């Protein structure tokens, strides 16, 4: 790696600084995990004695099961519909050339640049004006306003590297538009679909500001955590927090392993096509 104008000391400083900031980013996570193992009802440090009783209690709690089920349902539906919309949205963003594209690119990304709490409140107003009772289903809609643009952005990165000649070749060989979509476009964008799904699921899983105003009587895990943090604190807060974090980490790890496996296949495929040339 060629580095212009940065001396050894500067390089060393950049490495140390980066490591320190990364550690800083993980401090609160460690704090939550630590607190989940403390015996005391109200957190004190240094911790006197450790226990796993809060985990047993949390896992046995029926209301926690309800929360988890609501969160999973919301996240699953958000993922499915967001990826569906964003697949075409990303093609329009990056692959096709059409009049109005520049405007579309700007407008479609606007919701990302929008304070989520204000968006959630506007949606609350919107739902009540339309006579829709808010529940976890409306939360799916609300979260998608923010998540669809993010997935479009993620999938566009993949779509930019798309070679239009591949689609044209398929058309020339007599494929229908549907066949081209299924046999050419979808496989090429598959890595984008996978990473888009993971992001959609996890962003929904952890979302708070949009859920807060759009779930009505239902409650997702982040909402419950917030409610208990503000009033009625229970040691199940750090415990459920730790469980949520570890499930997200587990999912990322799984995704990484899948990526490693398919990445290897892709490299082999590339080697194969280049030997064909």
């Amino acid at each position, binding site marked *: *790696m060629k580095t212009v*104008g*940065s001396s050894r000391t500067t*390089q060393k*400083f*950049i*490495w140390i*600084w980066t490591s320190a*900031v990364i550690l*800083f*980013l993980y401090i*609160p*996570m*460690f*704090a939550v995990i630590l607190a989940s193992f403390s015996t005391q009802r109200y957190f*004190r*440090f*240094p911790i006197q004695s450790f226990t796993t009783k809060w985990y047993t209690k949390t896992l046995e709690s029926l209301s926690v099961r309800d929360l988890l089920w609501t969160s999973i349902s919301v996240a699953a539906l958000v993922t499915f519909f967001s990826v569906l*919309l*964003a697949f*075409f*949205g990303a093609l*329009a963003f990056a692959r*096709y050339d*059409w009049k*109005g*594209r520049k405007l*579309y*690119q700007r*407008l*479609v990304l*606007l*919701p990302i*640049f*929008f*304070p989520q*709490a*204000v*968006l959630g*409140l506007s*949606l609350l*107003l*919107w739902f009540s004006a339309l006579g829709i009772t808010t529940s976890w289903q409306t939360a799916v*809609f*609300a979260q*998608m*306003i923010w998540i669809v643009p993010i997935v479009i952005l993620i999938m566009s*990165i993949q779509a*930019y590297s798309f070679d239009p000649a591949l689609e044209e070749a398929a058309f020339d060989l007599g494929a229908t538009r549907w066949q081209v979509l299924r046999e050419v476009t979808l496989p090429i964008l598959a890595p984008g679909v996978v990473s888009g799904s993971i*992001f959609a699921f996890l962003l929904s899983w*952890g979302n*708070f*500001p949009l859920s807060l105003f759009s779930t009505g009587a239902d409650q997702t895990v*982040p909402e419950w*955590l*917030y409610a208990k*943090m503000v009033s009625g604190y229970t040691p199940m807060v*750090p415990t459920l*927090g730790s469980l*949520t974090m570890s499930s997200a980490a587990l999912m990322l790890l799984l995704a990484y392993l899948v990526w490693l496996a398919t990445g290897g296949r892709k490299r082999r495929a590339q080697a194969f096509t280049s030997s064909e040339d």
Partner: protein
Amino acid sequence: MSKLADWLKNPGVLAAAPASIFLLVGFAGPLLMVFGYSFMPSRTFALNHLPTLENYYSVFSDSYYISFLWSLFLAALTVILLFPICYPIAYGMAKLFGKWTNLVTALIAVPLLISENIRLFGWVLVLLKNGILDGTLQSLLGISLSGFLYTVPSILLGLVYVYLPFMLFPMVIGISMIPDPLKEAAFDLGASRWQVFREIELPLAMPGILIGAILTFILAMGSLAESKILGGQAVVMIADDIESAFTFAQNWPKGSVLSVLLIALSGLIVFVLFRRIDLDQIIGRR
């Protein structure tokens, strides 16, 4: 007429349609409605009254400017603090880390996928009286530092912490757009390091830095959780005011006016700066 029909047949238009219609219904619709409600008489719940400016008058004559100023101040300070924090990391990720860049990116991005309020709650545990920081200092040095939670600096810590990746990642893209030969040439011509930074690096990396700064600023302007979880009652930010107008006070028109003002301010900043940025160049670069 056939021109329109031709345009509608373009695959790009067809592909853009589902997401566009969805966002029209779910994003443009609610915002238009909030705009409409801001002109309705106070404490009404329908849009069929005669438009009035009374809410705007009452908001401007009330003390809401204080929470606006707090939000502006804290958001600006967040961006200012994040610039020197992120620049070395962004520089490292763009020019120095090589094969380690992916790992660094992943380590910084992973917290984004963990609920914001769990992470903020972690800071509460750190900063709490008898919490991790206080407890450690007490047992090691015998000093107590219990007054930090629920103050303006702790809100600022939360904002800097939560929005760091939003400032950092666009900055990395910006810095990686600086061609190295240009810097070499400048050094050969006798430029000092500061001159190279100011005359070459900064202007060339500016699109990325700007996107990051706008994103951070706007999200921090409208943030709710940081001031609630880490700030206690120390400061009321504008999103707090909007929330209480819509929920506790049940005054939709007032909440709408505050939202419109926040959106107008943020939107103005985004639009002015976005016009100078080419998204194809930035996202499609990889």
